[in-house]
């Protein structure tokens, strides 16, 4: 059962350096051949400064900084019972190779819901990412479901 005392808790900021190779690896794993995500010249031709981050790129800083695992542990959530319920992004500026992102993650709410398959905790998380110029670039919302 998720720890209610963490509602509205903000975790210490975490940083993540955006690497060109890792950006391409994500796009290749998904199997997208859209050249703006792979080829700098093609991206510049379409009005970007460099290859822009893929729409779901924010999953990388979350996973590679171990934030999600830390939060699950800190909120005393049973990892084996976790489902990813929802994910959403608000794009404020493009993220480019070489950017250094700082993520600030907050627990927005923890609610209990009962359904046919038993009761569950719904944990809403919000992460705001800024770049090295302190400009907000992306807001990520996730809903984590803990089955009980």
């Amino acid at each position, binding site marked *: 059962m998720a720890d209610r005392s963490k509602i509205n808790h903000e975790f210490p900021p975490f940083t993540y350096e955006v690497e060109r190779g890792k950006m391409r*690896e994500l796009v290749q794993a998904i199997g997208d051949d859209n050249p703006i995500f792979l080829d700098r010249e093609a991206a510049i031709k379409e009005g970007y400064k460099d290859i822009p981050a893929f*729409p779901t790129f924010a*999953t990388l800083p979350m996973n590679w900084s171990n934030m999600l695992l830390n939060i699950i542990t800190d909120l005393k959530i049973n990892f084996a019972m976790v489902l*990813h319920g929802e*994910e959403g992004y*608000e794009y404020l500026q493009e993220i480019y190779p070489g950017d250094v992102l700082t993520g600030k993650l907050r627990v927005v709410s923890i609610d209990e819901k009962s359904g046919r398959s038993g009761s569950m905790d719904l944990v809403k998380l919000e992460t705001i990412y800024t770049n090295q110029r302190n400009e907000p670039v992306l807001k990520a919302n996730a809903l984590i479901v803990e089955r009980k």
Partner: protein
Amino acid sequence: MAKELYFQDINVKDQMPILVKGPVEHMQLVKYAGASGDFNPLHVDPEVGKAVGIGGQIAHGMLVMGFVGQALAGWIPKKYLRKFNVRFVGMTRLDETVTVTGKLTDKKQEGGNNIIRGEVFARDQKEELLIAGSFEAHLPEKK
């Protein structure tokens, strides 16, 4: 590929070009785990899924959201996308084919922006829903 798109070029009920992905293979899940940093054994170890009673390996929900992102950014240029939200409805298993569809539901000018909104879906080959989502974009106007 998404080329230039103007507010005048798109209308409510316009369909996103259909994208068919897969079949989802074990190696793609291994690659996606390495790329995204999500090494949850449910996605990379065929034995774990059997052991916990979900009948085998399942794809990362975020990979399927990636398929939807590919379709979306192939239709609406990435630079115009403002919001992209999904709800994970069903599990995607090995060898399944994923079909991504979508359409425009709303188009209006507000606060100096040319706003479009739409819905997106991912379904498996049995037409079962995997993802339901929505998006918002701000488009330039043709002068």
